[in-house]
């Protein structure tokens, strides 16, 4: 398999106006990934699938990641001259990361038995611009996984054939896999015939029975 840089160059020469970035991965055994411009996502995906050298015909894993707005602290070594002596000082730089949702595709080739190539696409923000192109037309196997991301993260996949909630029920509001999701504390509340419900129910009893109803004695 070619290196990620070679693949990037070939994509950029084959598909003009495509911007790609390579995301480093600090984990030694892990794979670096290609960050795509969302508007060109579908073209790049088709290229990767149909290219004779790559033939990434198998989309193994599709998943979402939530990156809320955060301050990122990075340590940088800096040379400072203190009283005429040059010293190396560690300095912490704070950068603001804008919030976005990210979708990751792990691609393999079943025919050539290589992989994975990791593709990433990012939304503009986490609130109103959460559209990304669906890659289900290229790899059918992404269909349910993209539905799951839509369900749990709220990424809207344009061009998906059947974008509905899949794990949560249709009436559910909110995206439970987002980092800032707070589950309602009365999530499993079920009215049972006790206390205030019993008092409420008394309204519906006929008058003569009403006199006989006594509140339940707790053991």
């Amino acid at each position, binding site marked *: 398999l070619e290196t990620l840089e070679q693949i990037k160059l070939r994509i950029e020469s084959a598909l003009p106006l495509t911007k790609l970035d390579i995301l480093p*991965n*600090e*984990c*030694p*055994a*892990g*794979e670096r990934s290609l960050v795509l411009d969302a508007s060109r996502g579908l073209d790049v995906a088709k290229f990767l699938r149909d290219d004779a050298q790559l033939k990434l*015909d*198998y*989309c*193994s*894993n599709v*998943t979402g*990641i939530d990156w809320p707005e955060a301050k990122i602290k990075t340590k940088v070594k800096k040379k400072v001259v203190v009283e005429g002596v040059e010293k190396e000082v560690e300095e912490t730089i704070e950068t603001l990361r804008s919030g976005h949702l990210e979708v*990751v595709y*792990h691609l393999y080739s*079943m025919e050539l*038995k290589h992989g*994975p190539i*990791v593709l990433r696409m990012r939304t503009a923000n986490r*609130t*109103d611009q*959460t559209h990304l192109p669906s890659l289900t037309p290229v*790899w*059918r*196997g*992404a*269909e*349910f*996984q993209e539905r799951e991301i839509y369900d*749990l993260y*709220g990424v*809207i996949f344009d061009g998906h054939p*059947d*974008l*509905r*909630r*899949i*794990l*949560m*029920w*249709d009436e559910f*509001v909110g995206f*439970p*896999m987002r980092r800032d999701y707070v589950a309602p504390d009365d999530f499993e509340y079920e009215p049972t015939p006790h206390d205030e419900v019993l008092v409420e129910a008394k309204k519906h009893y006929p008058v003569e029975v009403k006199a006989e109803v006594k509140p339940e004695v707790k053991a």
Partner: protein
Amino acid sequence: VNTFATMPPKSFEVKPKLDESGSSIGELLEISMGPHHPSTHGVFRMDVVLDGEKVVKLKPVCGYLHRNHEKIGENISYLASMPYTDRLDYFCSMTNNWAYALTIEKLAGLAVPERAEYIRVIMAELTRLQNHTSLIGFFVHDMGALGTPLMYAFREREKILDLFEEVSGARMMCNYMRFGGVRVDVNDDWIARTKQLVANYGGFLDEFETFLNQNEILLARTQGVSPLTKEQAINASLTGPLLRAAGVNYDVRKVDKYGIYSRFDFKVPLGEHGDLYDRYMMRVLEMRESIKILNQALRDIPAGLVMDPKAKLRGFRPKPGEVYGRVESPKGELGFYIISDGGPNPYRYRVRPPSFINITILEDMCLGHRVADVIVILGSVDIVLGEVDR
């Protein structure tokens, strides 16, 4: 912002049956198969539209067992996810454990001692044996062979679960593997009895095959039903026996050679038509290959440690980075995708569930077949709802 306001869920569209002139000649029947039905192997529902007995539309509905396993994984430590992985595919907890342990080992660069690698292979192949055995039991059960074959299958499965219980303390929720090895060692007596079980297993398979392979009903119900082409199977990300039944030579054990699979001599059985009979035979043949692997592993297992003494389980904090690790579980490719931010719990914990992804083209498999075949087709996919819904 409620994004659903802009995108209402699409309703389930049912068109009336019309003849060429456009007048109605009958009605399509929409039925809900499941969720509480023994043939759905759990709590799973299919919205099926029928034209007479023929399936014209089928939409799987899942999520009844959803507990957001991935969110739980993000909120607990790396080690604490290990027992949770047992609950994904509760038939194959050993391979689930292995997939997770393998991913974390890849993330943190941990080494696994020789003996532990052998024990892992033994456990994984025993898991494959008991999963495929009971799957065939369920499969013929779905075709109407009520009880007897399933009981034969469960008799054998229970023998393997007894071995698991002896080692790990639990029949199904084994929680046996750790990053950098396995939790406890096995003794010589256990190995001797496992050898005995493996030696007898071939005989049981012979018996099973004698009853089933040429069985008239099984042939009538499976041959030519729901054939899949190679292209369809690959494009829909099918994995495991289903993919190989369609003739695609792809087994993660061979492709990635994870663990010590490169040392064993085994073959990858391939189907020709991708129909139900091929899927059934795939399981039988894979069990034969598993027996080969088990024989080699039980013969060669060395003495030594089962846990890397340097591995730190509690307070485990891998360096930042991300990793995707996968194994060949009996259902297909089971993967874990972990992002570490250097903290005590993963930033992102994702499970790639084979049975969930294998039902992506359930509709295509069922279209044009009879409603009775839907149950057999679903049985051949081999889903476990603990994994589908997570």
